[in-house]
């Protein structure tokens, strides 16, 4: 691993995602899924492909419960103190780095954190408008708009932007998720002035050139076609669709037809309407001098940026279901079944957030959690079984999932149901809750090690409009969760009787087995319903 190839991550399992872990419409949702392997790129990357050449042991291995008769390679010496793990000193009190918050005259909220460990600077701009603001006919517009801002401005071509960003040792990308648009920039700190200049140029004056848009659309359509060969895409598409119906959270990617229809005018309108400073937050973390940075921000994102009013967003209601349903996406020849079951759970500001965070950790947050220990370690059905929830502006999904061998599809589903039911009926143990809290507190602290990790947390508080002391009290709130809180949250947020179960797999081999669990609706890999056997639960909305 030389310096020259430093940009190539070679570990595929990280808790600190290198760039902000932001839930993107084309990404798998990442909230609450610490410690999992995430596929975060819109398109698979060379990095991933090359990464396979050096082989990574990403996780432990399915194992039998049998405690094998063991034979030590070396005769153990008589160091009996080794028998138990070291007793550890109390954690050092965690202190959030000092930050300054202020507002510009145009309403832009600014947060600054000095970090002089490395000569580098990270700039995140969050805008409180995401794909939920799109009209149905132009699905994908928020993401394409965000992606296209770096493809040309009034004074720079796409290539000139790329040249400038690369020259300053930087990075600059726009993206949008369901609720927000996010622009992430960085550079060597000696070029802070040039970074702010190019960030403000793409945010304020994107020109969305016709030829660039045409290329973007062509390539995006190609990528969408490729995505359809991936079971996890098919699974998320169906899962979010059945959970959210007409609600904007119900669409994870636009159709090629949608993309075709999007015009330059759509991008210009979306930009003009939603890229307003009074609904945006700027977080700058890095090696800078505060007075100088404030002056730069005022010059580049203050004077020239006009505020505007956003209409109140009205979300359609999510469908209500009675009874469990199975949605089977038939993928003939599939050697595995991808199982995902869940329901609409909570929003980011819900008082259940911390109890559910802890409960989810006990259930399926990592390799020490129940689902993993049962379905992988004990049964050996899968390479990994997890649960997660994505708390968003509006209530997002709770889900448990695994990819299992085709032959054990039904047996795996049975184990999932057992574990979910157990969470609702019985208290978790003291050890489980302690382990879960320590894990979450540790991950939280570890995540703040990098500029990008810290910027992401600060932005989260601002965009979701969480209490001002949210980060300072995060660990306290975590530690205060009781066994009763966990069970209460599980009973409320895991809708056991009315779950949606999505399975992507070989229909011919698994449909009959699944019908013993609940009525099955069949879909093809194009996402279209096939035939009409098995009635779904009554829709009341």
């Amino acid at each position, binding site marked *: *691993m030389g310096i020259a190839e430093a940009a190539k991550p070679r570990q595929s399992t990280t808790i600190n995602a290198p760039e902000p872990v932001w839930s993107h419409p084309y990404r798998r949702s990442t909230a609450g899924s610490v410690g999992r392997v995430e596929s975060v790129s819109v398109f698979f990357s060379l990095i991933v492909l090359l990464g396979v050449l050096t082989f990574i042991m990403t996780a432990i*291995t399915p194992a039998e419960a049998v405690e094998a008769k063991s034979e030590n390679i070396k005769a153990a010496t008589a160091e009996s103190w080794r028998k138990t793990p070291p007793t550890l000193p109390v954690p050092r009190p965690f202190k959030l780095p000092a930050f300054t918050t202020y507002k510009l005259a145009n309403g832009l909220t600014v947060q600054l954190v000095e970090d002089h460990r490395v000569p580098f600077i990270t700039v995140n701009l969050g805008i409180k408008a995401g794909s939920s603001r799109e009209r149905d006919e132009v699905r994908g517009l928020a993401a394409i708009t965000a992606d296209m801002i770096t493809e040309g401005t009034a004074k720079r071509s796409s290539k000139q932007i*790329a040249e400038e960003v690369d020259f300053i040792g930087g990075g600059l990308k726009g993206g949008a998720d369901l609720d927000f648009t996010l622009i992430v920039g960085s550079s060597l700190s000696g070029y802070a002035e040039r970074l702010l200049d190019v960030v403000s140029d793409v945010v304020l004056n994107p020109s969305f050139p016709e030829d660039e848009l045409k290329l973007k659309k062509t390539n995006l359509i190609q990528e969408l076609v490729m995505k359809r060969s991936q079971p996890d895409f098919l699974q998320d598409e169906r899962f979010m669709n059945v959970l959210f119906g007409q609600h904007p959270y119900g669409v994870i990617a636009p159709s090629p037809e949608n993309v075709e229809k999007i015009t330059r005018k759509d991008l210009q309108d979306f930009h003009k309407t939603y890229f307003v400073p009074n609904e945006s937050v700027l977080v700058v973390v890095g090696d800078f001098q505060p007075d100088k940075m404030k002056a730069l921000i005022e010059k580049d994102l203050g004077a020239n940026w006009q505020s505007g009013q956003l209409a109140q967003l009205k979300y359609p209601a999510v469908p209500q279901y009675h009874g469990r349903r199975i949605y089977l996406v038939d993928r003939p020849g599939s050697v595995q079944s991808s199982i995902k079951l869940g329901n609409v759970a909570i929003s980011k500001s819900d008082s259940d957030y911390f109890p559910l965070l802890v409960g989810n950790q006990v259930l399926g947050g990592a390799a020490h959690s129940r689902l993993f220990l049962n379905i992988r370690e004990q049964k050996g059905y899968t390479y990994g079984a997890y649960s997660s929830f994505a708390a968003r502006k509006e209530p997002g999904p709770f889900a448990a999932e695994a990819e299992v061998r085709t032959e054990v599809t039904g047996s795996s589903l049975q184990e999932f149901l057992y574990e979910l039911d157990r969470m609702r009926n019985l208290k978790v143990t003291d050890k489980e809750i302690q382990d879960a809290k320590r894990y979450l507190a540790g991950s939280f602290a570890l995540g703040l090690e990098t500029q990008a990790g810290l910027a992401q947390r600060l932005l989260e508080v601002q965009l979701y409009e969480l209490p001002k002391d949210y980060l300072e009290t995060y660990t306290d709130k975590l530690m205060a969760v009781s066994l009763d809180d966990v069970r209460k949250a599980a009973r409320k947020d895991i809708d056991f009787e009315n779950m949606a179960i999505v399975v992507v797999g070989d229909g011919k081999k698994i449909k009959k087995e699944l019908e013993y669990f609940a009525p099955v609706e069949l879909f093809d890999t194009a996402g279209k319903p096939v035939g009409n056997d098995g009635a779904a639960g009554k829709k009341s909305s």
Partner: protein
Amino acid sequence: MKTKNKKRSFLVSLILSLGVVMSANAADWKKPLIPVTEDFTLPNGLRVVLSEDHSVPVAALAIVYDVGSRNEEKGRSGFAHLFEHMMFEGSENVGKTEHFSYVESAGGSLNASTHNDFTNYYEKLPSNQIELALWLESDRMRSLKVTEENFKNQLETVKEEKRSRIDNQPYTPAALRFEELLFDNWSNAHPVIGSFEDLEASSVEDVRKFFKTYYAPDNAVMAIVGDFDAKQMHGLVEKYFASIPKQSRPPLPSVDEPLQTKPKYEKVEDHHAQLPAFWFGWKGPGRREPDSYAMGILEKILSSGDSSRLYQRMVKGDQVALRADAGLDERRGPSAFEGFVIYKPGHSAEQVRDIVWEEIDKVKKEPVSEKEIEKAKNQILRGLFAAGSSSSLQRCLGRAEMLAEYTLFFGDPKLVDADLDAYLKVTAEDVKRVANKYFTREGITVVDVQPVPAKAEAEAEAPVLQHK
């Protein structure tokens, strides 16, 4: 402000004295890039590097063993990786897979990876918990448990891993085949994952032998970076590791490569790929060889960022590709410079390859501008200072891994500074010379990936790759 100015002027003089020409705008940084607080070797040969950093309450331990797939014997391909799995199967005082539960329950993360020329293990923890990592790593170094059941179990797991992460993925089987073809020496060429036949032919006895030969304290370097007291940590390292007996250090394998005199080519069918693609590449200079720095700069010029030449020409300009990347897979001994292009329907592989060659010929004939060289150097700095890269200095794990690797491979943890200087000294002339030396018509290896429709059911379960 004052101290900052002082620091800058100090750095400027330091840099001038080293003969490094830097733009006035470029970032300044503290040297050494990774301060070493202690660097010592236990009587059993285990070398340990400690770096204190109290800026965040986090610590990371990285231990790198001098063994990889290149150390495998013919007929035992894949064994180094299979062995890495065995390292999670328990030791005298740690149960099977308990490494994960111990570390995760303490709020940390851990993993391991097997490479051609080394194998690494790491734990990253809240700093008060770092002793746990010493306990876990020392227990498996001194008393790994090997049972027939665990061994068979891991064998199956690795096979499952190969099926799901290689055979079932688009373009990946071709990537492995490409690397096999690119190198002539079996030690360099054979895939880390190995072959099913070889894995099945191995035994528990092989595991024991491998452990004794390679997993000895004198065949490893351990680095610990983060928020701890180095003196205290030194004591803990002695407590946990000093009683582990040393072995004789195994000989290094020969990794010599003959000069390639004829281009190599193969076509691979792929049932998962939707679009045609090809891998292309050349043998390259080994890590820290004199040419490796210019090659690193060349890699940035060709493929780092949206302004890089391959992206601008193939994805943006000619619009023939969805993806066009290249990278240097650096190793001790010969490296591989590897490129990958996914191209759009309506073009032939030959047409697209001609465009790649035009770009390659351009760096061979025309000197790169000063500005482009400086841009590439700034990308090198970005690799060190940005959060996202695995060698990011922002993360204590990145620092620990770099320290351990430099120390194990080259005997000196401070070489990260020397390497950065070497990159910053590369000239346009160096880049042109290196491009001509390595990117030859006769030295290239190409693997075309031909998508073929998935076969129904039974056949689809058979291996998807026909390259033999």
